[in-house]
Structures are given as structure tokens and as C-alpha cells.
């Protein structure tokens, strides 16, 4: 798969290509899967998402493992990133709630009523996007 970069410029070029490839229609489900999330049951939530996304044939949905967000008290945490809706972070997600996220938020395009958390921070790259 991967080829070795032959010089520094190739890496910059590759990074640009990766950014360009991003399509608007992709819906990302980011599941916090650090040790803390997994201990709280994030691995089961992850499996449910994978299984259900396949079952429903949702081709533009990416189920993504991510690291810890730092909100240990509300694990497992899932962030839904999709066009036409704000990024929403849900806490206390269990297997049942995961299916509701898929049905109501991803397919129904409606933000759920429960367990919404404010993403607690800004990071350095969001700042660039603001500019």
C-alpha cells in the first residue's frame, strides 16, 4: 500500500491530497475508545454501530475509533459529524442509545433530546479554521 516518501515535499503533497479527498457527504461517528471508554462499554457500542451501519447499508457512514476526549464521567462518548447538522457529542451512550443515534440523528437528521454534551475545548487547529 504505502509508498515511502522520497523527500519532505512529497509529504506536504500527500497531506494536501488527503484533505482534498474529503467528501462532504461523509458522516463520521467518532467513538471514544481509550482504555477508559472501553472499560465503560465503548467496544460494545462500536460493534453495534459497525453491525447496524452494514445492515442498513449506510455507505457514507464511517464508524471511527478515536482516543479519549477527557470526559471520563460520561463515557462512552460518541460524536456525530455530518453535513447540515452541528457536530453533536453524546455521552452515556449504550447499545440502545447507539441505535437511536443511527435512526434518529444519522438517518432522521434530527438531534436527539438526551445526553448532549458541549464539546469542552477548542484545539489549535480549530483556531486555524476560524481564521
Amino acid at each position: 500500500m504505502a509508498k515511502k516518501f522520497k523527500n519532505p515535499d512529497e509529504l506536504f503533497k500527500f497531506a494536501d491530497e488527503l484533505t482534498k479527498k474529503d467528501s462532504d457527504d461523509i458522516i463520521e461517528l467518532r467513538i471514544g475508545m481509550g482504555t477508559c471508554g472501553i472499560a465503560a462499554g465503548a467496544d460494545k457500542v462500536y460493534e453495534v454501530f459497525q453491525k447496524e451501519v452494514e445492515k442498513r447499508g449506510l455507505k457514507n457512514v464511517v464508524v471511527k475509533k478515536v482516543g479519549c476526549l477527557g470526559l471520563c464521567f460520561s463515557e462512552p462518548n460518541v460524536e456525530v459529524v455530518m453535513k447540515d447538522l452541528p457536530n453533536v457529542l453524546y455521552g452515556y451512550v449504550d447499545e440502545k442509545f447507539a441505535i437511536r443515534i443511527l435512526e434518529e440523528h444519522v438517518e432522521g437528521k434530527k438531534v436527539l433530546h438526551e445526553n448532549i454534551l458541549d464539546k469542552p475545548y477548542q484545539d489549535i487547529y480549530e483556531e486555524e479554521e476560524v481564521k
Partner: protein
Amino acid sequence: MDNRKIIFIGCQKAGNLYDLINKKLVDENLRQKVHLRKFYTFGLYTYKNIIKVWPDNIIITNITEDEIDTFIEEVIKNGKITKLKDKIYKKETHPLIKNTKVEFYHKQFRVVLRNSGVINPEDINEYIKRNGYKALAKILKEYTPDQVIEELKKSGLRGRGGGGFPTWMKWNCTKNVESDIKYVICNADEGDPGAYMDRSILEGDPHSVLEGMIIAGYTIGAKQGFIYVRAEYPLAIERLEKAIKQAREYGLLGENILGTDFSFDIELRLGAGAFVCGEETALIASIEGKRGMPRPRPPYPSIKGLWDKPTLINNVETFANVPVILYKGGDWYSQIGYENSKGTKVFALTGKIKNSGLVEVPMGLTLREIIFDVGGGLTGNRKFKAVQTGGPSGGVIPEEYLDTPIAYETLQNLGSIMGSGGMIVMDNEDCMIDVAKFYLQFAVDESCGKCSPCRIGGTQMLSILNKISIGHGEMEDIDKLISIGKAMQKASLCGLGQTAPNPVLSTLKYFRDEYEEHIKDKRCRAGKCRELVKYAIDPTKCIGCTLCAIRCPVNAISGERKKPHVIDQSICIKCGECYNVCKFGAVIKE
């Protein structure tokens, strides 16, 4: 497509704002026009009510009940905000994060954890997409090692492992030593109770640590790096191994990195869980295959380290900062933070705190802001007593110092340390002698036994503490604790022994009255020291429900139904079960 507005209403300090807005909207027949959602917000100390409006993407703060009409009028009906204009949150410069446009009501600003929770840590492409390895490419293209050190110097970065030694000095020192073989070591032997920052960085963004190490290798002229990580972190190890493999495939590790003459590789070394191996000389001994014991310094590892070669050793968090500094520039980084402590620090908030978890805040934020704004205050809204920072090497900080800005020097002046970043919040039910005992016990267990001040001093201090906690203490014990503690600080060989007395000395400094109470009055006000607690039943409150008698594991409670019960003190084992189960508050702990 549904193009109704979504209104998010912050719901913990907002009181009944949600209900009021909801009712108003129903009354005015506007409820169907918008989506209303509650959300749980953070960092609300200065801003009481936060409302986010989407898709307008504005944040309105401090809305009062009287302004709800105006809010509905302006935001929902005509979408033109005039009267509430002053309440719109403006992204403005904050003294701790200059020249950035950060929404600082969050109080968290992420540099080290920038990718954690955003990218898939097992996919190098996602890291590259978020500007990953660009700093390395830039350096290999146009920077000399001296320029890298110059940027680090400008940034003001200091070691995040606890000591706070300026990073550029360490790098410069190792660079200037003549040697054909040099090493870079990443210290990921995180052992403090209650601390897990390094684990989260390694699990959430392993490539940032690798990139920092590769840059270090280029700067000091090393070809080999080691990550010394605890075997107790299997997921971190797994993700690191994947990351290293992917970086090799891309030519970012190994021979001729990015087609240049520079070669560097990284291997993992697993620690078997000895706390002392977090000390740099003990860690080096452990990598060499020897027993993990510290040796006297100097010579420092930068002169004579791993296999007697010059070795640069930094903590995980320090390395994770490096790519950002070189990507955005040292000047940019130095705008974040406070006085001589630049940048951000990750803390692990644990103990009696509502929002327990990892937080990354700019240096200089006060303890109060971290605990009450970011952390949401204490569980059950109980009264704050103290916060313990720095693990077994740190100390406690009482309430009167909550407004101290967090920095290396300020914490040291209070008798604690920044340490790796554990922060344990304690309330009135925590006994300070018990806390000191816990940390000292930890240090005694983990002492390697090589030097006598640590080996004997720790044990002696612990036995005095035990004596005090069972009510056999004498007033002179306090002086003994202080004199042994001071001797340990001065004479111990390594950081473990030098800092082991800190929890005792700092609790003595701020809570001496509690020690005296244990000794003179044989009383533990927190009810933690079992031998000093006595349970009794208040006959005026007891209704004779028999629940405590049923639950008592040793049948020490007797009495007839519907009549006050009594506890037989000669049988009672002070387990506290009766106290916990009584629904009428009739069991008294004294």
C-alpha cells in the same frame, strides 16, 4: 431538508431557563418553529447561562429570565439581534492565550491532546491530515539542529514530567556532547496514583510522540530511540506498535527519513511496573537490563546515560508538544501560558469531582477555575477541603490558595509540585492523616531500598502516622515527622525519596490542627480513622425500624421493634454499615 433552528441551552447552572423558554414558545405558538435541546456545558463559572444557536453559530451568555422575551423576539422571530448584542460571546484575546481566537468559556485549550478524540489513532493518514509530520518535514528541509533548539528556547517549553527543567537546555546539552552514538528516550512510565495523562496521549495520538522523538533524534544527532512504557498499558503499547509500523512504511522512521541522510528508529521497552523506574537513572538501568535502581547524578544522562552514551530523556507530554511548537513556531507557543510556565498542561481530575476526566488548560489558570468551572465542582455539592497535586511527590493545597495561578513556581511555593498532573479533589469526609498515610505507604512500598534515608526514613514516618491514626500519638511525634521528613528531602539519592515526605509535610503545614486533634482529643473529624470513631444511636431520632440491627455483620445492635436501638461498643467493629443504611439520620458518627 429541515431548516429549523436548533437552540442548545446549557443546563446545569441555567436553572429553569429551558422550561421557561419552552413554555414561552408553546404559548406563542412558536414551538414547532425551532428545535430546543438541553446540553451539558463546561467552564461556566463566569458565564451563567449559555445558549448556542445553530446554524447561526452564535453563543449568547448570561441571559436573564427577563430577557427571554427579547431572546425569542430577536433570535427566533426576526433573526436580527440588536438588544442582546452585548450578550453575544465575543472571541477575544485572553491573557493566557494571546492572539488566538479561542472560545475561552470552555477554559480548555488543547495543544497536546489536539488530535485525541478527533482522529483514529491507528491510521497514520488521519494524523498527516491534521498537519502531522509536517513539522518533521519542515525541519529536515530547512532547519539546522541549532535552529530547532532556538525555536524550543523561544517557546519556553519546560519538562512536563514534573521537574520543569527547560527542554531546550536539555536538548542543547545532549547535542553538544561529542559522541558517535546517542539515544533518545521517551519516559512513559506513568505511575502516580490517579494520573493517566500519558496513557491517553499514547492511546489517542501516538504519532505526535513519535514525531517529537524523531525531531529530537535529528536535533541531538541520535539514531536510536526507546519508549519506556508500562506493561500495564496494553492498549497504548498496541497502538504505539501500529504507529511505529506505519511510520516505517511511510519512510518516517528507519533509514534515510524522507529521503534525507538522517536515520532514526524507535523501539519499545516495557516496564514491569516499578514506580522508581520513572526516575530517569533508574529507567536507564532498567532498559539496560539491570535492576531499576537510581544512581547519583551528576553525571547527568545528557552526558552519560544509556550504556554510558549521551541520552536525551523526556516525558510523553513534552514530546507531544514539540511538533506543534515547530509547526506553529516558538513565538506562537510562548503566547500561551503564564510568566515562566509556557504552554498548556494536561491534568487528570479525580476524586470527589463531578466531571472527572482529563483536562488540558493553559498554564496560569487558577485551581478554582479548574476544579469548579472545568470540573463542575464537587460531587453532591459537598464542601471543598483540599486538592492533592503531583501524586506521592506532591502535596495538598487547601481552600485559601484556590486562586493561585497554576505554574511550576507557584505550586512549589505552596509546598506541592506540578508533577505529572494528577489532581485529586478531597472534601470534608477525607482525613488528612489518612491521605498522608496513603501516599507515604505508596512511596515506602515503591522505595528501591538503595539509600537509607528513603528506606528507613519512610518506614519510620509511616509507623508514626499509623500510631497517630489509632490514637496513640504524642505531641512530639509531629516534630519527629518534620525532622525525619527534612532529612529525607536532603539526603535521599533520587527524586522518590526526596519528595516522599511532601504529602506529610504539606498536610502538616496546612492541617496541623487535624494532627493535633488526633493526638490530643483522639478524634478524627472526617470519621476516616477507624480506631477513633465511635458509632452511637440517637434515641430521639431512632424509630426502631430494625434495619441497622439486620445489617450489622457482628450483631452489635439490639433493641425491640419500634423502640430505640443501642450499639454495644464492645462488639462493634466500626464498619459504618448502620450509619450508611439508617434512613432517619439516627446513627451518629463521633
